[in-house]
């Protein structure tokens, strides 16, 4: 036996580890290349970072509003929350109707494939583009915003709902079929009730996203609400105090929604 140390290979390359390494190498390589490829002329990173730091300190410690009062700000915030709620409800209503047709265990494969492809296409177009496109047909305002945002809500919830339906035990469906229940009875009396907590949790999570989206559509697509005030404060008045004021309000709602969503998720895990 020789004294030369023998190298023991601890990790054998497998198909998945090779794919993982290649993926990471590609992403890291692109990131490094990006530093050389991106055109960052016209910005002095040092002084901009310094200004960002003082801006952040100012907006969090000295929020102030010149162009609206507290009541008006709360009203705008409420409008944004309602915009989010409305889109969630409409999206959920459509998704619960179409959902069973997009679940593998309840519908024929071609129907499922068509629906899944269709929703993937909807999701490929960013929400803001949907809203702006609809704004030409419906005019700027809540109609275009709600319709445009509903497209994404619907496709997101359809995916979530159909996956929740697919988790239901095949034996249960088999047993109901054997006892003479028709498709409609199986869906309405067994599938939807038993996946209810999961549906509620997904819907609330979508509400959380839709609130953020409603802020964004107010800023970028003229949907009104607090997002529009944010856009004006930063893009027109260059008023960091006002940006801070609005950011605080948005953040408080976002945190409350996140806590709610997490609670719902946890209670659902306990039930299981």
């Amino acid at each position, binding site marked *: 036996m020789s004294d030369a140390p023998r190298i023991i290979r601890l990790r054998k390359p497998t*198909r998945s580890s090779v794919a993982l390494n290649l993926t990471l190498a590609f992403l890291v390589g692109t990131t490094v290349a*990006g530093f050389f490829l*991106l055109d960052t002329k016209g910005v002095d990173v040092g002084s901009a970072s310094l200004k960002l730091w003082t801006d952040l300190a100012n907006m969090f410690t000295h929020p102030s509003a010149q162009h609206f009062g507290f009541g008006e700000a709360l009203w705008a915030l409420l409008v944004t929350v309602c915009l989010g709620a409305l889109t969630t409800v409409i999206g959920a209503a459509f998704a619960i109707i179409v959902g069973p047709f997009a679940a593998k265990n309840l519908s024929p494969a071609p129907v499922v494939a068509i629906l899944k492809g269709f929703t993937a296409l909807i999701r490929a177009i960013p929400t803001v583009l949907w809203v702006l496109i609809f704004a030409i047909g419906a005019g700027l305002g809540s109609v275009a915003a709600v*319709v445009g945002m509903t497209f994404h809500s619907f496709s997101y919830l359809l995916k979530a709902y159909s996956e929740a339906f697919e988790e239901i035990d095949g034996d249960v469906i088999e047993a109901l079929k054997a006892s003479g229940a028709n498709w409609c009875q199986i869906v309405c009396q067994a599938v939807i009730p038993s996946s209810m907590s999961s549906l509620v949790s997904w819907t609330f999570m979508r509400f959380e996203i839709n609130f*953020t989206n409603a*802020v964004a559509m107010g800023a970028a697509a003229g949907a009104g609400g607090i997002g529009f005030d944010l856009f004006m404060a930063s893009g027109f008045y260059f008023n960091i105090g006002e940006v801070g004021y609005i950011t605080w309000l948005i*953040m408080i709602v976002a945190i409350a929604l*996140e806590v709610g969503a997490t609670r719902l998720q946890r209670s659902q895990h306990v039930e299981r």
Partner: protein
Amino acid sequence: MSRDSAVRDMFRRRNLVAAASLALVAALTLGSSALTQFDWPACLTSVPKAFAWMAANFVPNARALRNAPNVAQKLAETVLVSIMATMLAAVAAFAVAILGSRTTRLHPAISILARLLASLCRNIPVVAWAMILLLSFGQNVLTGLLALFIGTLGYLTRAFTEVVDEAAKSPVEALTASGATWLQTVAQGVIPSILPQTASWMLYMVETNIRDATLVGILTGTGVGFLFDLYYKSMNYPSAALVVLGIILLVVTIETASNALRRVIL
């Protein structure tokens, strides 16, 4: 009580709950539509009208195709920004998640600080970050990159923390028991065991960021969002449609590729 009436009782209670929930949802819907001045009839008529308009006008034509190189260049920039934001945020999120997770934290105070930072990044929407950064970084590609970076950092930290909590518990216990230092535990136990799942999250965030980059671009005047806004506001709809078509192609391609990769990695 007979069995029959017990069953009837159960169904009655179930119907009552269903009716109450429906009433609540209806009230929420009516209240919200009144508050936002949402016009239901206009909504119903506008959807077919919008699609008819899209089919007639929102189609790239020969003149729009001359803008194709321009669109392709902005799309490439968007991909670059999305990947950079994701990867830079992923590196930072690794650190924040490992310091913040209950299984791997160094000190409870650092853990709370890490969670607070992640919550701040996440709960201020990307739009708000973009508007904040606009004041210091101006109309620049860096503004979008930083806004996406901050948002991604918040989101990935939450995801990575969950992964660390779930996947790293037994390797951490085993390595700590065998006398490994914290650094050794993290480098040899935690990171290898969470890498596949975190890579899957990174792929997901690249996808999400490409969509968000459009939004941020409209607000900060950069990238493909700016190009869309330019064509849209000058009513050059065929060219705007070309941008949308490019985005669809890009997102579907990336989604397909990352789904295929995910299947091999996980």
